[in-house]
């Protein structure tokens, strides 16, 4: 198999973001896992190189472990700004994360809607503009809309992360048509974030030409998260290879796989 994943992961086909050549196109979230201990096993199985986490006030009465202590040293940290309802709050979280030694990558996540946790494209754009100025590598989570994506791109976003379905819904590519258009019209990498619930959905996103996918709930809520992480690793590589290989035409009617001459009809 190695050679195969090579094909998918050689530097020839690496994904360039923030000056880094990524070989894995599977980003992982670390939320909702049953314990901190399982996280490194999941990351290992997934082959991911980019991992997201959140920043929160410590529970002063009984302080919990810091998730960072469970992340392999070589992983790229992608702190998110979850909890932020405005651009200003997102900017503040980004700065704190950087100060905490997380590096300069940040996933912008600005949400007011508490039912579907849909991002606010306006505040997301404002936060992106500010943080790009401050030298961050900004990956905004957004509601798929071409005009918003173009503005984020113009603002200097390193990649655009449209949602496939509401966070944690495991409902896959509900916004497929809009994502397809973003992939076609936007030049920075499109990373499908939120909603992907099955390996096949990750593969489909990659076949459509997505640069990568970010998965969390689908793995964290699986019966066997480590096995599911492996599944997504293979699915993302499969979808990418399928995209590179160039799928055949779809046809309404049938086209014989075997020679159409009957067997002994002529007799």
């Amino acid at each position, binding site marked *: 198999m190695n050679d195969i994943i090579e094909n998918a992961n050689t530097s020839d086909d690496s994904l360039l973001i923030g000056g880094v050549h990524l070989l894995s196109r599977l980003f992982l979230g670390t939320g909702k896992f049953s314990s901190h201990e399982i996280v490194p096993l999941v990351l290992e199985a997934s082959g991911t190189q980019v991992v997201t986490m959140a*920043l929160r006030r*410590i529970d*002063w009465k009984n*302080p*919990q472990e810091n998730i*960072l202590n469970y992340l392999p040293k070589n992983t790229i940290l992608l702190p998110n700004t979850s909890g932020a309802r405005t651009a200003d709050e997102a900017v503040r979280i980004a700065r704190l*994360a950087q*100060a905490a030694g997380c590096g300069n990558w940040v996933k912008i996540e600005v949400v007011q809607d508490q039912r579907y946790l849909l991002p606010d494209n306006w505040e997301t754009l404002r936060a992106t503009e500010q943080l790009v100025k401050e030298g961050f590598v900004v990956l905004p989570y957004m509601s798929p809309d071409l005009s918003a994506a173009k503005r984020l791109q113009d603002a200097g976003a390193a990649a655009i992360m449209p949602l496939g379905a509401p966070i944690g819904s495991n409902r896959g590519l509900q916004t497929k048509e809009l994502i397809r258009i973003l992939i076609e019209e936007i030049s920075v990498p499109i990373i499908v974030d939120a909603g992907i619930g099955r390996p096949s959905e990750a593969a489909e996103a990659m076949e459509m030409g997505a640069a990568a996918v970010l998965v969390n*709930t689908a793995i964290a809520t699986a019966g066997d998260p480590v096995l599911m992480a492996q599944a997504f690793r293979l699915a993302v590589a499969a979808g990418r290879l399928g995209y590179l290989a160039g799928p055949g035409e779809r046809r309404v009617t049938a086209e014989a796989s075997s020679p159409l001459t009957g067997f002994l009809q002529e007799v």
Partner: protein
Amino acid sequence: MQIVVNGEAQEISRECTVFQLLQDQAVTLIAAVVELNGTILKQEHWPSTLLQAGDRLEILVFMGGG
């Protein structure tokens, strides 16, 4: 002497450094992020930083997130 930690008033002894305060809660072990009166306080300055009455301290930590 009173300070505010994560939004809650708290009584502490005089001559207490940020490091000592955190140590009492074993927070020193878990790579927390500290904001003192609105500005980041680097970890290396925790031992040398004496808390003043009325100081506003934010102690943050990274958690699992997507």
